[in-house]
């Protein structure tokens, strides 16, 4: 989903980098909740977002032994919140290259985490590669 394509007004982009360790996932969760609170999401939808972002960070940590950091980019618009979560292997190896980003149907889904994100968000694109790293891009519509 793209804010320009949908005609929605872009409200702002927030970037957050956390250490790729379990004790920092709560920081990402709370930060995204604060961002979502700037949009007209319900309390329940904000809880959904918190869980989805935490699951994405957890997937990065579980799949990326030795990752140093996780980048979370939130793009807020009047119609939706788009969140990208990627580990630092993605950032360092992916510069300038065309990222392989199959939809969730094109990759093997790992566990409950992916299942929950799919259930709680309106859209999910997910790629995990031992060398390229892990990336999840998810969107939640304001009116969903």
């Amino acid at each position: 989903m793209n804010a320009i394509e949908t005609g929605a007004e872009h409200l702002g982009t927030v970037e957050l980098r956390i250490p790729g360790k379990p004790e920092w996932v709560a920081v990402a969760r709370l930060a995204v909740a604060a961002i979502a609170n700037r949009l007209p999401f319900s309390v329940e939808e904000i809880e959904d977002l918190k869980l989805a972002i935490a699951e994405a960070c957890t997937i990065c940590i579980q799949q990326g032994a030795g990752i140093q950091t996780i980048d979370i980019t939130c793009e807020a618009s009047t119609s939706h919140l788009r969140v990208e979560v990627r580990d630092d292997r993605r950032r360092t190896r992916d510069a300038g290259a065309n990222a392989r980003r199959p939809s969730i149907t094109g990759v093997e889904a790992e566990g409950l985490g992916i299942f929950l994100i799919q259930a709680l968000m309106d859209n999910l694109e997910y790629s995990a590669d031992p060398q390229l790293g892990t990336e999840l891009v998810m969107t939640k519509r304001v009116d969903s």
Partner: protein
Amino acid sequence: MDIKVHVRESDDDAYVVELGGEIDVYTSPKVKDAITELIDQGHYNLVINLEKVRYIDSTGLGVLIGGLKRVREHGGTVNLVCTNPQIKKIFDITGLVKIFGIFDDEAGAKKALA
């Protein structure tokens, strides 16, 4: 970020694991340790009280599922106490409502163990 784990024996020979706070990738090992310790001691009928839990993610669910699988090997079970609508919703979405006994209060959860 916090997790509180309190284990107590109830009058009817069941063990209650009372949890409070947030269960996520950071805190779930502490919950797993408490449940594993009880099972290793031979206690196979457990009530896990989630009334004071504000948040649970897939790693927390994984710990509960792992505990249930282990006690079932010994003919036991795990019943949950859960009243938080957001947490109930997660059990609904994942289909875990069909696997766990989920009760609104501890008395009901303990009674169903018998």
